[in-house]
Structure formats: C-alpha cells, structure tokens
C-alpha cells in the first residue's frame, strides 16, 4: 500500500506541472492587465510600464514561469498583485468556509442520498422508487442560485430561523458556525444528492442481479439484509467513485453557493482573482485544486481497497 501511495503521489507531479503550465499559458494569453487594474482609469502608458516592471510582469513569459516554479519549490506562492497579501495567507484565510461547505455537503449527501438510493432500489418500479427518483431528478434540474434564493426567502426572511449569510469559524462557537452552514449546504447538496442517489440505486440494482445475491436469498436472508449487507457493500465502488468525481467537480457549485450566501471561501477567491487577473493567486489556487483533486482520487482509490478486498495495489 505505502509504495502505491508513494507512486501515486509521485505521478501527481506531472499532472500538476501540466496544469500549472496550461494555466500559466492561458492566463498570459488572455487580455487583461493587472497593472491597468492597479493603476486605474487614467494611467499613462509609461506609468503602466513602470507598474508592470515593479510587478515583474515585463519579463518574458518563460522567465516568469521559471521564476514562479523556482519559488514554488521553495514553498513560496508569491503575493497577490493587487493587495500584496501573500497567496498562502489568502488561501489559509479562506480555506475554512470552503472546507466546511464541502465537508458539510458531502456528509449530507452521503447521509441522505445513499438511503434514498437503497430505498428506491429495494422498491424497484414501485411508488417509493418513483417518488425518490423524481425528487432526486428535481435536485438535478434547478440551478443552485435559485435553490439558494428560495431557501433564504423561506428559512431566513419568512421564518427567521437561520441567518441570511456569512460565515463564523467554529472557533467562535459551534452553534453560530453550524447555523450559517445549514442553508448553503442544503443548496449545494441538492445536485449531489440527486447524483449519488441515482448512482446508488442503479449500482445496487446491478448488484442485485449477481449470483451471490441469489445465494443470499437461498440462505433465507430477508430483503433488507440482502440490500444492506450484501448489495450495498458490493455497490460501494461505483458510489465512492461518483462521490469522488462529485467532490472534484464541486468547485463551480461552490463558487455560486459562496456568492449567494456570502461565504468568504476559495470559490469566490478564484472568480475574484480571475476577474482581477491576479496571476499568483490564480496559480496558487489551481495548484491547490489539482493537488486536492489528486488527493481525492487517491483517497477514493484507497477506499476501493476498503470496500473491495479483491482490489489491492
């Protein structure tokens, strides 16, 4: 196992290099000049050139790339072009809300979607199946921002149960932290609940056709036991896969959720940084994302071995 993990982590390096270079190229190709943003409306060409020089943006792209890579190796992600705050600090400041949102969403998804999928598969073709599937499909049919507005309108404005927006770190008390997390998590989980419930259902249905399920029935096991003990664990691999992909593709949803609920997270930071052409911040973030993505894949692959003893690395 350990050598495998090592190997995977090593093979992450080329991926991250690819991503870094692609992003670097993409960013430098896009028009938009952080110097112009910094200088504001009435700056002269000469002033812009000076600013570019002081930011190091006047160097050839390859030199910039090399400098950046060199700094990365020594653990330095640079500073924001606009605010001068170190990128590591910016990320550290804003990783909390995103992490909370992501973890919350995944937990809620798992807690809700898997039972939904199991129930639907167990009642294949029945009313419960139809209702559960219709619900989960609905979750897949409404944009997150609409869900978000509706939730705020009812739970915060009409009922006054929950705050509209904002984030409190857990260090300031668990209750305020959770209170502000409920709605964003609900809004964001909709899509994933839909996805995971459907995959759970279809994987379980698939497993239910396997020979060992017949063996279990021949043993006299109840339908419930067959679903929970035999089918679910065998269906775990595709479910875990889809959850993994879900986490990896969470980011667009996170951006919207963070905007609607004003969570100061990484999702917003990406958009802000891209719109402001704050190159070091974008690059730092993408590096973080690709690393996270690789990590998630690794965790997923390791989970495979937990759920399926046949898989060994």
């Amino acid at each position, binding site marked *: 196992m350990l050598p495998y993990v090592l190997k995977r982590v090593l093979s992450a390096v080329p991926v991250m290099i690819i991503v870094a270079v692609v992003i670097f190229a993409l960013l430098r190709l896009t028009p938009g000049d952080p110097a112009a943003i910094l200088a504001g409306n009435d700056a002269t060409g000469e002033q812009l050139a000076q600013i570019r020089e002081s930011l190091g943006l006047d160097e050839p792209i390859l030199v910039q790339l090399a400098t950046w890579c060199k700094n990365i190796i020594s653990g330095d992600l640079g500073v924001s072009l606009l605010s001068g705050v170190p990128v590591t600090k910016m990320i550290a400041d804003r990783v909390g809300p995103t992490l909370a949102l992501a973890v919350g969403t995944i937990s809620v998804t798992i807690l809700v979607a898997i039972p939904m999928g199991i129930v639907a598969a167990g009642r294949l073709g029945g009313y419960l199946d139809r209702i559960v599937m219709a619900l989960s499909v609905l979750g897949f049919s409404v944009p997150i921002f609409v869900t978000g507005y509706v939730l705020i309108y009812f739970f915060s404005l009409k009922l006054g149960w929950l705050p509209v927006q904002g984030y409190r770190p857990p260090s300031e008390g668990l209750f305020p932290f959770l209170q502000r997390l409920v709605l964003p998590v609900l809004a964001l989980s909709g899509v994933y609940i839909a996805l995971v419930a459907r995959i759970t259902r279809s994987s379980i249905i698939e497993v239910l056709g396997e*020979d*060992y399920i017949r*063996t279990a029935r*021949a043993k*006299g096991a109840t339908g419930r036991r067959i679903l929970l003990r035999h089918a679910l664990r*065998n269906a775990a691999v595709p479910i875990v896969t889809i959850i993994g992909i879900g986490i990896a593709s969470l980011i667009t949803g996170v951006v919207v959720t963070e905007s609607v609920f004003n969570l100061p997270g990484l999702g917003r930071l990406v958009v802000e940084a891209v719109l402001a052409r704050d190159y070091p911040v974008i690059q730092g973030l993408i590096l973080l994302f690709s690393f996270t993505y690789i990590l998630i894949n690794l965790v997923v692959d390791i989970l495979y071995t937990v759920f399926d003893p046949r898989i060994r690395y």
Partner: protein
Amino acid sequence: MIDDAGTYGSPVIRVRDLTVGLTHGDQKNVVENVSFEVGPGETLCVVGESGSGKSVTAFSIMGLLQKNALEPTSGEVFLGDENLLQARPERMRQLRSARMSMVFQEPMTALNPVEKVGKQIEEVLLLHSKMGAAARRQRTLEMLDTVHLPDPQRIYDSFPHQLSGGQRQRVVICIALILEPDLLIADEPTTALDVTTQQQILTLIREMQERQNTAVLFITHDMGVVADIADRVVVMRDGNVVEVADKETILRSPSHDYTRMLISSVPSLVPEPRQPLHTETVLSVAGLNKTFQKKRFLRSASEIQAVADLNLTLRQKEILGVVGQSGSGKSTVARCIVGLEEPTSGDITICGDRLQGARSAERRQMRRHIQMVFQDPYRSLNPRVKVGRSMVEGSTNFGTPHDAAMGRAEELMELVGLSTAALDRYPHQFSGGQRQRICIARALMLEPAVLVADEAVSALDVSVQEQVLELLDEIRERTGVGILFITHDLRVAARICDSIFVMNQGRIVEHGPAEHVLGRPEEEYTQKLFEAAPGRHWDFRNFCPV
C-alpha cells in the same frame, strides 16, 4: 411411472405437474407438467439439453424464480407435507437453508466477493439459529473441516478470491449443508471445475449425503456424472419430462428415443485405433516458453511460467489433442501459436516459414495460414455484425473482393451444414451449436493449414457436441487441415484425436498416439486424470458397462 421411493422412506420432496410460465408475453411455458419425487438419502439426477428447464424447476422449488419474469402457474411442490408454491415469503425464508438448500453452478460468482467466507457460512446460522457468536464460529470451523478444507482457520478468514474454484465450491456446499437440510439441490455444481476437482466435490456430496441422509436433486448434463452418482434419473427436454427411471434402466435400456440419442452421443473414453499419418508437417513448435510477469512497484516482479519448453509438431490432416488440468497452460500454447500472445522464447514454424524474426507484414501473411476456433460460441461472434460480414472479414482483409468472398462463404456454410440464408442473419438467431459451426466456417474461410480449437466443444451439450466433432472430423478429411485440439475432456479427446499431448504446469508430461496415451497411460499424472473422468466404467454408446 416407477415409484421406488419406498426404499428411501416417504419422499422428502414431491413435485406434481409443475408448470412454469413467463409472466410477460404469451410464449409457451418454460416448464410443463413436471413431476418427480426424491426420498431421503436418494440422489435424483436431472439431465437434458441446455435450456430444457432444469434450472427453472430447481428455482421453482427453492422459490427463487426471477420475479417479474417467471412464475409457477400450476402444480404443486411438497416439501414434507408443506406445499411450497402456496407458502408465504416469510415461511419460504425460514425453509431455505434450514430444510432445503441449493448449490449453484458457478463457484466463482456464488459467493459475496467482499465478505470473508467464514462470515458467509455463519450467516446461515445467524439467520436460522439462536447460537451465540462463539458457537457459530465453532460450528463453521467444524463444517469447513468436514468438507476437507485444509487449515479451516485460514479459510475462515479468507475472501472468496483468495480461494481456488474447488475450494469455493466446497464453501458453497458448507453453506448449503451446515443446517443439515432434508433436501439439497445441486445445479451443475461441477461444470466449471476440472475433472480432478470435480471428482473430489462429487465424493464430498456423496459423503455428506450419507452422513445426513439428505435427499439430493442433482442437475447435470454430464452423463458420466450420472453414471457415477445417480440412483434415479429424470430426463428433460423442452420443459417436459421425457422419462423418469432408475439409473440402470436409463443407461441400459432407455425407453425414449431422445434419451437413447442423448446417451449414445456420449463419446467413449477408449479411442478407436487410427492409422498413423505421414503427411507433411504444417506446424512445428520448438522450445516454446511463456512467462507472465506481474509487475510490482519497488519489488521484484513475480513470474508465472505458463508454458515451459514445449515442443510439438502437427501434420496435415492430423488432429492433435492437448489435454490437461485447468491452468496447465493449454490456452496459452494456443494463443502463442495464433499470435494473440507473444512467446517469451521459442520457435514457431508455419508451413515451413519461421514466424520469429519475420517482419510484421510477413507475419500477417503467415498468420492467415493458422486460424482459431474459440471456446465460447456466444462470444466469439460480434453480436452486432451479420454472420455474412463476419465470415468475409478475414478474406477481405487479405484482399479478396467482397463478392468472391461471399461466394466462398456460401460454400462453407453448406459444408458446415447451414443454409446460405444464414449469412444474412445475426448471431443471436442461432443456437450455440450452430454458432460454433459458423465459427469453424469462418476459420476455414482463409483456407488455413492449421486450425487451433481451444475448448471448441466444451460449452455445448453432448448431442450438439457430437455434431460439431463429426463436422471437424469431416473437414480435416476434406480440406486436409491440421487441427490442434485443446480440451480438458478426455472423452472428447479420445473421440477425435490422432495423437494426444498431456500438459501439466506448462510442460508436456506425456505424448503419443491417442490409443497409447489414453489406453495405457504411463505417467502418474495422466493416470490420475484418467481416473478422475466420471463414468469411466460405463460404455454409453453400447448401453453397457465397460
């Protein structure tokens, strides 16, 4: 109808006029008016061609018919004095495993792959008894010991994929028998296993049966097995019972034509004497080695020597049999020869041209002289492509115009006994035997000098098997093709081969003319193989013991 159940006490299971139909559609019933009974300690074998309703009957008894597809429409099934067709699902669950249990055909898939086998056996105890955890474990370990599994502790903690096929089947038997049920249904429990393992499993079932006085309903298509273990036999065809009688009657003097045909199709273990051939050599293999490497990170790769130092020559018109246990390397030899696998070392010469060292374009040209028929008739034709197009694919690859190729395809279809109209149909519109004939015809399209047939008849029932074997025999006479015939079935080998190579662990242990190898095996391995062949005391063709 003969009712000798008396000798075994009152029947454990009585099936009366059982009819099973499809839930949807108005096709004819899958099983119709089937009746039989099995007494305690008795073994009733159910035989019949594939699709004749054997499994459906078994599933009806267990209440495991696929919902929404099949349902019993009339008749009754009594376990003791309880009508199972009327029992509530609740009750059926209680009865399963406790009073009746079933062993399935595929040991590879019958066990839950993600749970330790010990736990899977224990589950039965958990569901049907009030034993404590320790007692359950104890009982399970005992049971593992009873079925002669080595080191029960280790097996208990193993996952199915860590066990061999035979071991897995024993685990399944443990599950079926741990509660000492009155009835054991075994649906082709040994078909997937090689002969030696098969024999062990059969012995085991017999042993358990004697100990627990179980009634055994044994489904098989292997007449050899019937000859070895049956007390009475049910012959089924097309969902109907053709004949029920005790074993002796069935084997010696079957009253029904179908039974007679079925039994006489079973090839004899004793090869007919054949003239030695002195034709040209079409294929020679010298010093063939094939090792598979499992790459492992940061550790030395582990190697499997699948074929070691193998030499053989095949002459024109010759049928050369390769036999051996499962995993002995037969398929690997075949795949190396046809070029699906690259040998680690060794020379393969086809019609005098050395394959090794040739450039890839030349190789492709040489390869057309050597064609292959695969084991599984259902999977070796692309289901999405019409038979005709499959047939001409090879020829057109080598530049024959489409029309000319079609002409040849039509000839070959006639040769293998199919109408030319078949060319315009899809594979699923043919039976397994017909498909295998199509595959043979396809292989002949390129007019090969060598035909490699890897278990080409293993998936077919005896009657169909016989037809295909006859076809092969005829073809080699007519076209002079040399056939490398791979099988694990000694009867088939004896029926058709001129000479036999016996393989064990990648090596040839014995070879020579069929009469010699099968008649007077010299090597211990061959003898063991021979002894394990079921029903070897019976000469089916002549309806009498050997």
